[in-house]
């Protein structure tokens, strides 16, 4: 058995899309919407919400919510790349997974690409009407 392939698929699927997985919808720069995984099931990802942040120059403690969305690469037919703009929709309340909010993966925030075991983490930002 190829352990790496196994982890990239079955293992990551369990940890990311298991009981802690939340529905995620992606819209790529071409306007194509992705809301299902490779099996046709609802696309799910691990959604994390909070983190303290410190401004290094002023020394103040600035609390900024940092959202991290981790997805299995095998679940995506197109992988977000650095420099691209994507729309990301996901629940803000983990107890209400059916209500999705719209966020923005900016071209200035490169995703973390876990090539060795097949995951990708993107960092969406708040989006308001222009």
């Amino acid at each position, binding site marked *: 058995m190829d352990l790496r392939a196994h982890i990239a698929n079955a293992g990551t699927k369990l940890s990311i899309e298991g009981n802690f997985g939340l529905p995620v919808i992606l819209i790529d720069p071409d306007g194509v*919407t992705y809301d299902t995984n490779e099996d046709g099931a609802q696309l799910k990802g691990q959604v994390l919400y909070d983190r303290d942040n410190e401004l290094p120059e002023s020394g103040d403690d*600035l*609390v*900024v919510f940092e959202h991290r969305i981790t997805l299995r690469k095998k679940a995506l037919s197109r992988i977000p790349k650095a420099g691209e703009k994507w729309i990301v929709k996901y629940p803000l309340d983990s107890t209400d997974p059916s209500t999705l909010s719209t*966020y923005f993966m900016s071209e200035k925030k490169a995703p973390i690409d876990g090539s060795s075991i097949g995951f990708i983490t993107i960092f969406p930002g708040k989006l308001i*009407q222009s």
Partner: protein
Amino acid sequence: MAGIDTPMVFENLRDTIEALLISFSTGRFQVKSEQVQSYGAEESEGTLRIVQVFYSDGDYNEARSTRKFSAHDCTFEINYIASEPSTADLSVINNPLSTPAELATAIAAATDGTRIVNKSIDTLRRMISQIILDPVNNQLGLPQINGKNQVANPRLTNFRKDQINDTGILATVTASERLTVRVQESFVGATPAVAVQPAIELTNEFNTLTDPDGADPAISGADITTSTP
């Protein structure tokens, strides 16, 4: 005159600067006079961008002092904090009937928050500069006393914008600059309200500083004369 239990001019100035900025703040920014150590980025989002003003340091000018009066070169620290989200046409992006081409156009036109917050802090600096350096406000809210100004030489210096932080869902940036002014302070300490005529009186060739209220700023050079009380 100021004493141990009464505010000095720099304290009054601190309050009038804050009041002056607050009078122009509605819909533009918010003013905080305390030094905030920990805050949430959403507190400074959009037009809630923060202006912090506080007395940070000062020097009594020895060359412009007598026993009872001293020029006080005050420095007020002004800190700016701004946060902004990204923007896009959500009426298209959130419309389930939008075509892929329409979505692609809306996504391409989305503006990242770092660009918006960079301009926001520049706008904030412009606003504060226009308020502080407006000749109409050259006394920064302090009244004249006996027709004489209490504040001299208000200057804004050392503006510095920090690196934009975009690791969170809001792009944030801080900046700072300094407001320096010269005021005249008086010193009676804990002595009683009724002043005792000194046996030795400090005068200089330009001003006799016997009127504590509204006296001209001390000019360097002083002669000591004695007088019989």
